[in-house]
């Protein structure tokens, strides 16, 4: 239906323009030069608007911009035809009829500019302007025809104003002044609307709006100059007047072209899909896909989130969960990409991209394979994140359990045994030395046994959790470790400041395990321990002069690697056979 209508309109515009041209050619030499140029320019403007309007209409049938442009085109055609006919035939009231019709294209054009690019008035100011625009134009023109000398309206040969008041009547002057003022106000209002909208237009959408806005501003500027000139100079030299008219018309020819350029720029965006396809043909690291999509859609704020069916959640490339609800701000929009009805991913982007959903879908389709890849990758990352968290919980739980057991030993068994030894001591002192030598000897023996038991219990508790570490920090704890070592240990000065407990504990266990290995397996004769700060990390290094060949997958080192990994640190074991062992742990301290 609308397609046929468009075809009909296109043919009408073509035919009317051709008739106009034919009339022009027929008149030939009879017509003054400037007028002929004007008429040709008007045909140009008409066709330009009609053609661009039809293109826009077919691309966005639900947007009235196209229809308005076609209307502008047809109005100019009618205007041109009438002007042509009137100047050719010189029928009575011909000028008056043309004068009325001539206001129409400008009114529709102003309407078009005011509501561009939505095609309809959305703000109160826009609605006010559209109504005022139409309400003012026709009555003003009528009033001018009735009261003003035709000569000052542009018809030198016309006999008189319609009410025949004659010449420069005060009413006529007043009407001219009022209409000029009104036009100036409307022009300013329109300028205000255009500037405001430009400032409110989000970045991505400005691209297609820019050419239209640019030509619009030029048009408005020339129009304002013309109006000002008319106001200050009642009868300007015809060269200036025609020049300005031609300037306006030329700009008007350009305006629809600018619109087409805007459309073409969106088309150019579509060509970015091709670039994206080329980029995706190489394997992209998952994090880069988001950047590639952002480039293709020219939206630097674009975020890509993958759907994880197991978790019923969206996550980013690193596996962290993403809340789509957090993106409901006015200028944000979410496009869910689906495959067979199931969500695969979500694009969180600027709302302006919703203008061109086809582009977003095209980009998504191009990137589908890579997105699916990225989704799997994100799934693995999310699982890894979970594993890491659970490993951290296990280590955390283990450490808490160690502290609890040490505390229980201290307050329970150890304290009781100390009480027993005290009681034994008192008993022993009461027995004295003379009375019962056998009892005294038995008590001494029990006390000695108890001393050994307490010593063993103390070492056990210490192995479970070194209290000195939590009480005094890494330096004293490493020194205590060295004091107890069966092989000579040198501890390089340790940073005196306290570090996060998890870092201190991990550093301590690294040193303790490495030292135990050096003593047990490496047959080392000297060990050096150092702990120093490097770029926010704590680097713990334990080196020995033993036989080397340590197995990084042995249970002790494996456990250390787990501990270090919980802190996002790195554990390196350098242990070539015969060259000693060097164990290095890099522990980030931002905990």
């Amino acid at each position: 239906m609308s397609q046929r209508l468009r075809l009909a309109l296109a043919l009408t515009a073509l035919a009317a323009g051709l008739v106009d041209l034919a009339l022009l050619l027929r008149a030939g030499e009879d017509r003054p030069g400037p007028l002929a140029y004007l008429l040709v320019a008007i045909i140009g403007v008409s066709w330009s608007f009609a053609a661009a309007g039809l293109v826009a209409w077919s691309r966005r049938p639900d947007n009235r911009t196209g229809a308005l442009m076609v209307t502008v085109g047809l109005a100019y055609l009618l205007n041109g035809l009438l002007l042509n006919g009137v100047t050719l035939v010189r029928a009575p009231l011909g000028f008056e009829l043309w004068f009325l019709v001539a206001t129409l294209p400008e009114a529709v054009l102003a309407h078009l500019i005011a509501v561009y690019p939505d095609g309809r008035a959305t703000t109160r100011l826009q609605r006010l302007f559209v109504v005022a625009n139409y309400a003012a134009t026709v009555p003003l023109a009528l009033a001018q025809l009735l009261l003003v000398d035709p000569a000052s309206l542009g018809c030198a040969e016309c006999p008189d104003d319609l009410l025949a008041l004659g010449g420069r009547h005060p009413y006529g002057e007043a009407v001219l002044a009022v209409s000029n003022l009104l036009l100036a106000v409307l022009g300013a209002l329109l300028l205000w609307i255009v500037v405001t909208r430009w400032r409110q237009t989000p970045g991505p959408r400005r691209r297609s709006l820019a050419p239209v806005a640019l030509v619009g501003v030029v048009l408005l500027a020339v129009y304002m100059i013309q109006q000002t000139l008319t106001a200050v100079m009642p009868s300007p030299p015809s060269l200036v007047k025609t020049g300005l008219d031609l300037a306006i018309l030329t700009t008007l020819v350009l305006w629809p072209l600018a619109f087409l350029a805007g459309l073409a720029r969106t088309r150019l965006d579509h060509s970015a899909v091709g670039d994206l396809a080329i980029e995706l043909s190489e394997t992209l690291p998952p994090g880069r896909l988001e950047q590639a999509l952002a480039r293709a859609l020219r939206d630097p704020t674009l975020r890509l989130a993958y759907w994880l069916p197991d978790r019923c959640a969206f996550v980013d490339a690193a596996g962290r969960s993403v809340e789509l609800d957090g993106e409901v701000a006015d200028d944000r929009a979410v496009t869910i990409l689906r495959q067979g009805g199931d969500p695969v991913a979500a694009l969180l982007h600027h709302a302006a991209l919703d203008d061109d959903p086809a582009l977003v879908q095209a980009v998504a389709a191009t990137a589908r394979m890579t997105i699916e890849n990225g989704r799997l990758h994100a799934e693995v990352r999310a699982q890894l994140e979970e594993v890491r968290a659970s490993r951290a919980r296990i280590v955390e739980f283990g450490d808490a359990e160690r502290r609890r057991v040490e505390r229980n030993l201290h307050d329970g068994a150890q304290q009781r045994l100390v009480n027993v030894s005290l009681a034994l001591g008192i008993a022993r002192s009461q027995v004295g030395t003379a009375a019962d030598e056998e009892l005294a000897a038995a008590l001494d023996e029990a006390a000695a046994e108890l001393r050994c038991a307490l010593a063993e219990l103390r070492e056990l508790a210490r192995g479970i959790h070194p209290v000195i570490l939590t009480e005094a920090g890494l330096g004293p704890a490493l020194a205590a470790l060295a004091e107890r070592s069966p092989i000579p240990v040198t501890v390089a000065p340790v940073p005196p400041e306290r570090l996060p407990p998890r870092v201190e504990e991990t550093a301590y266990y690294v040193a303790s395990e490495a030292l135990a290995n050096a003593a047990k397996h490496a047959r080392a004769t000297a060990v050096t321990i150092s702990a120093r700060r490097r770029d926010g990390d704590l680097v713990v290094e334990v080196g020995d002069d033993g036989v080397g060949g340590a197995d990084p997958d042995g249970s002790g080192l494996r456990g250390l690697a787990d501990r270090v990994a919980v802190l996002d640190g790195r554990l390196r074991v350098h242990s070539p056979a015969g060259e000693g062992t060097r164990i290095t742990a890099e522990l980030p301290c931002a905990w």
Partner: protein
Amino acid sequence: MRVVIADDAVLFREGLARVLEAASIQVAAQVGDAEQLLARVRADPPDAVVVDIRMPPTHTREGLDAALRIRAGHPEVGVLVLSQYVETHHAMQLLEDGAGGVGYLLKDRVADVADVADAVRRVAGGGSVIDPEVVARLVGRRRVRSPVEELTDREREVLALMAEGRSNQAICQRLFLSPKTVEAHVRGIFTRLDLPATPDDHRRVLAVLAFLRA
């Protein structure tokens, strides 16, 4: 002689009081935490305090901190810190913080009733008492190329007793040696370890421990 005992383990506290009373040391008060101890010392300074390192509320090092505060505020009050484990770090902290009159012993030592009474008397008299376990660990510690490795066994024994805070006379009695022999050993050790000779027992303990720890 009057002492105050601070320990949250009531049974132990009372047993210790009995032991001290039996050795003619008057127990002026028994308290269960560091706050009460400090209040008691402020109100009526005793000759010495015996304090457990772990006490309420956090059960970490309240006793140690209270001991350090008493040493700073009441240098005339001897301080004996008891603990179920001994750390060189704590020993050094206590020693470095003031001039004598300080002791650091394993809680087990109370089994030897005479020993603990002797330790209380020594700290009350301005002497230093360091647990043999701390000293043994430091003396027995394995080292690469250290003058300690070159000491004779007898010299090591003398060194350990010095580190425990024993005077020359006490060393004589312990090792059944004449004062002259002990003095000769002490001089020999100081020369061998290149330590400045000092007549002050406390300084001697500090110097020896610092050397052994380095």
